[in-house]
């Protein structure tokens, strides 16, 4: 009976998380800009059965390299509804399963269902993860829960049947995202930590690490061989333009990091880390700490996006905080204040609600507002009907996927930088062309990328004092769409 009660509560937490996500996701009929990449892939899979690897529109024509499991899963669910509906619902469904896997991991570590449920509840509303996976059709909505499912399986892999499930989960993860290498790195750090702490290193652990290493390398050779040869070791930074990489952390301060991670996970997580490293010393907890250290290092080296790195770190701290909460209960039970356990936990939950839950909703709402507006989409659909196939549209880099999806025209750049030559030059030129004063330089850049149209979205216009001055040269630029969104036709060439 007691077991069922916990499962019911877990189910309710899962449903609450999912419903809240769906409500926020459907605040807008559109997706976040990057979501249109996956939407296009889903539609292509539905038509042809394979992902769109050779893309004639992105960057004027390029090859995409990515593991396709997430896109195939979305395409499968799209069979039962429209792709636009499926890509909103399914990623949020996957993302909500994080509460289940965090519960399993915490229960595996502490053996206590109550703190595991609390941690599960916290994990459902981590601001960094919650806001970045609402309407983005992000692969992380699938990968993050899967990652923690694998963590749970690895904590219990000595059981035969779990080993088979672990293989399948690893197979799915390897074909979804290269985050498997983070797991390998974490295992190596775990090995070192075990050695330092004087623990015996089980052979099974080494065998699993070996298998995982070669498994990941082999699959990566298939998927990323071209990218390895093209970019060399800098593939780790995914060919992100230098200027963009530099700006990753510029606008972030410590308060914002606490805001994104969450106050309760941070405090209790750090208390746990201290307790585990210096007093408690259990190998399973050391494994979680190893993964946390790995993500921390990756964030420092800018090898992972800030919001994603913080999302992982937050969830790991929540898992670790289960131990701190468990120790707190045990401690308080021995004291005179044992009757205050429940009020204390109510206070913790209230603090969490104010510091993380509401922040998650606010952040998610702000993120959803960053989706394109109806006018933006209308303009691009109009452009599709009033331009020729094969023509190129210049918009901001964030709008690249939007242009290829709605206008079905070539873009100059978007947020997928892998296998793109001279990305720093291209990024620099695409961003500065909107601020240039000199018309000849602007025309030179526009001619270089064979731009036929310049697209100014509502967001683009509102973020500027005025449009570039060179657009007033009617011999070169014609305003062909003039609403809250503006589209100019480029019809001159430098001789």
């Amino acid at each position, binding site marked *: 009976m007691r077991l069922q009660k916990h499962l019911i509560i877990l189910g309710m937490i899962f449903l609450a998380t999912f419903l809240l996500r769906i409500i926020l996701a459907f605040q807008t009929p559109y997706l976040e800009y990057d979501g249109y990449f996956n939407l296009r892939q889903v539609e292509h899979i539905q038509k042809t059965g394979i992902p769109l690897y050779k893309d004639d529109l992105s960057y004027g024509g390029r090859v995409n390299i990515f593991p396709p499991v997430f896109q195939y899963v979305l395409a499968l669910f799209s069979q039962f509804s429209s792709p636009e509906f499926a890509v909103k619902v399914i990623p949020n469904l996957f993302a909500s399963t994080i509460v289940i896997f965090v519960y399993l991991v915490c229960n595996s570590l502490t053996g206590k269902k109550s703190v595991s449920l609390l941690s599960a509840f916290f994990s459902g509303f981590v601001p960094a993860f919650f806001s970045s996976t609402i309407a983005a059709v992000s692969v992380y909505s699938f990968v993050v829960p899967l990652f923690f499912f694998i963590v749970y399986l690895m904590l219990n892999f000595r059981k*035969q049947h779990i080993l088979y499930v672990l293989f399948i989960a690893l197979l799915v993860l390897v074909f979804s995202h290269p985050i498997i290498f983070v797991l390998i790195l974490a295992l190596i750090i775990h090995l070192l930590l075990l050695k330092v702490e004087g623990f015996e290193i*089980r052979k099974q652990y080494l*065998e*699993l690490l070996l*298998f995982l290493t070669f498994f990941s390398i082999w699959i990566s*050779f298939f998927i990323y061989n071209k990218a390895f*040869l093209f970019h*060399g*070791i800098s593939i780790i930074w995914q060919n992100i333009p230098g200027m963009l990489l530099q700006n990753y952390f510029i606008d972030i301060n410590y308060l914002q990091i606490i805001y994104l991670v969450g106050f309760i996970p941070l405090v209790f997580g750090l208390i746990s880390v201290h307790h585990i490293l210096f007093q408690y010393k259990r190998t399973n907890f050391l494994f979680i700490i190893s993964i946390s250290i790995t993500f921390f290092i990756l964030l420092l080296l800018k090898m992972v996006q800030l919001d994603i790195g913080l999302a992982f770190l937050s969830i790991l701290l929540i898992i670790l905080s289960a131990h701190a909460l468990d120790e707190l209960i045990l401690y308080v039970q021995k004291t005179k204040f044992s009757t205050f356990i429940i009020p204390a936990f109510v206070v913790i939950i209230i603090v969490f609600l104010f510091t993380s839950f509401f922040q998650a909703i606010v952040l998610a709402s702000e993120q959803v507002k960053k989706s394109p507006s109806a006018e933006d989409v209308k303009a691009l659909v109009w452009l599709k009907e009033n331009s020729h196939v094969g023509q190129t549209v210049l918009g901001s880099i964030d709008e690249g996927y939007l242009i290829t999806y709605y206008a079905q025209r070539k873009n100059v750049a978007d947020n997928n930088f892998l296998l793109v030559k*001279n990305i720093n030059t291209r990024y620099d030129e695409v961003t500065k062309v909107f601020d240039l004063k000199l018309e000849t330089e602007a025309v030179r850049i526009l001619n270089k990328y064979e731009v036929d149209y310049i697209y100014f979205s509502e967001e683009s216009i509102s973020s500027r004092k005025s449009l570039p001055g060179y657009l007033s040269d009617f011999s070169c630029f014609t305003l062909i769409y003039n609403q809250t969104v503006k589209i100019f036709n480029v019809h001159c060439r430098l001789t």
Partner: protein
Amino acid sequence: MKPIPPIKKRIMLLAILCVSLIILLLPQILRMIRGNENLIGAESYEAIRIAGLVKDNATVDLLSGERIEFNLFHHLIALFESIIPALVLAKIIPVIFGMCAAVLLSKVLSQLKFSQEQAIIAIILFLISPGYLYVYSTLNQYSLIIILFLAGASFLLADKHYLCGFCISAILFIDILSFLIALALIFIHAARSKEYPAFIKTVSIAALFLAIAVIFFSFIPRIELHLASPSFSTIFVNFGGILGLGIPLFILFLISFAANWKKAGLLITACIVLLVSLSFFESGFTVFLNLFVVAFGALALSLLINRRWELQNIKFLTILLIVCTLLFSSLSYINRLSSSQPSPHFSAALMQVKTANPGFVLTHESYAPYVYYFSQKGMAWNRSLSNAPLDFRRDMHAIYLSRDLKETESLLQKHDIGLIFITKEMEEGLVWEKENQGLEFLLPNTPRFKLLYNFEDSTEKYTVWEYRKE
């Protein structure tokens, strides 16, 4: 797993010869299927050109302006060139050398008390290693160096110290850096086995040969070390390097090395660490490092096969994955080798330069061997610009990057440059970062530059421009 039954030495020798022959012929065959009959690698063309000059008793290379130093490898090629045509020789000799190297390695491994299983694994790893594939697909001085080193090692282990000394001394007359590495390894062996007389005998023979060469032939050994910026691409072929190590094999090596470094001893550990560090700067060091990587890798793989695993389910899977990863890495590398420069269009473009007006050729220094061979013209500068005198470096940068026609013309005339050879790689980062930068802008827009040759498709682009002073 059941142990492999002992294989007779003759059968093993035959198997090594056959397998090495097939593996070494693969890049050539694939290349021919793709319609490219050119040799693989710049070193091949450099070697046959220098050997040709040696055969003609030339003392100075008129194209590069450098003195022709004595090099045993080039003299050997020159000797064979009198019997076999150069281009045929350039394809046959690496294969023969490769087969010899494989056989010598098997001999050395058996002398080092590797079990037959470990030796077989080591030889297979050696045959599929990028270090072996590159060295023995091109006409490369390392192909002879490795044979001499392995022969010397074999003689040393058989207590034939003077013969060992003879082989190691021969390396001295090819590349002094390789000689020093070989000598260091001989010393390490002597120190481990406390057989210092062996080392002393080797050094004595080398000193004797050196003395004879200096006194009677005015031979002056020179160390030419061009260290590039450290890069993962230099050491790992999977990140774009041409001569280096494969990552899967390197991981096996790391596993074995981590487990056995105490047994290997401080000297070998130090030597390996030094070789690994230097390999980040200069890919030539990976040729020797490859031998260690292969040996340790074989020990690792043998251990994994014979060890009792606690997770029996994944033992077979893991070993299968290791084998598949190694094979895939090698096949991918063979494919890259077979489609590497020079392509038929590349050589055709340079042949145009042959019949053009006199004057030096301006192009990236990495194309120097091809320019000399195909166009038989000199280059404005044939080495890394970082080694050039400051004013020359300034001039070259100005020629490439300046849009000032007067300045560019005066510099072209100053350095007697009559031809400019441009490739797609030069336009996409090798020389120019942006389009229409500097000389790239001037060429099509200035009447003094005449387009002699232009080829462009989706993957390649070669243009040859002639500069007319009047």
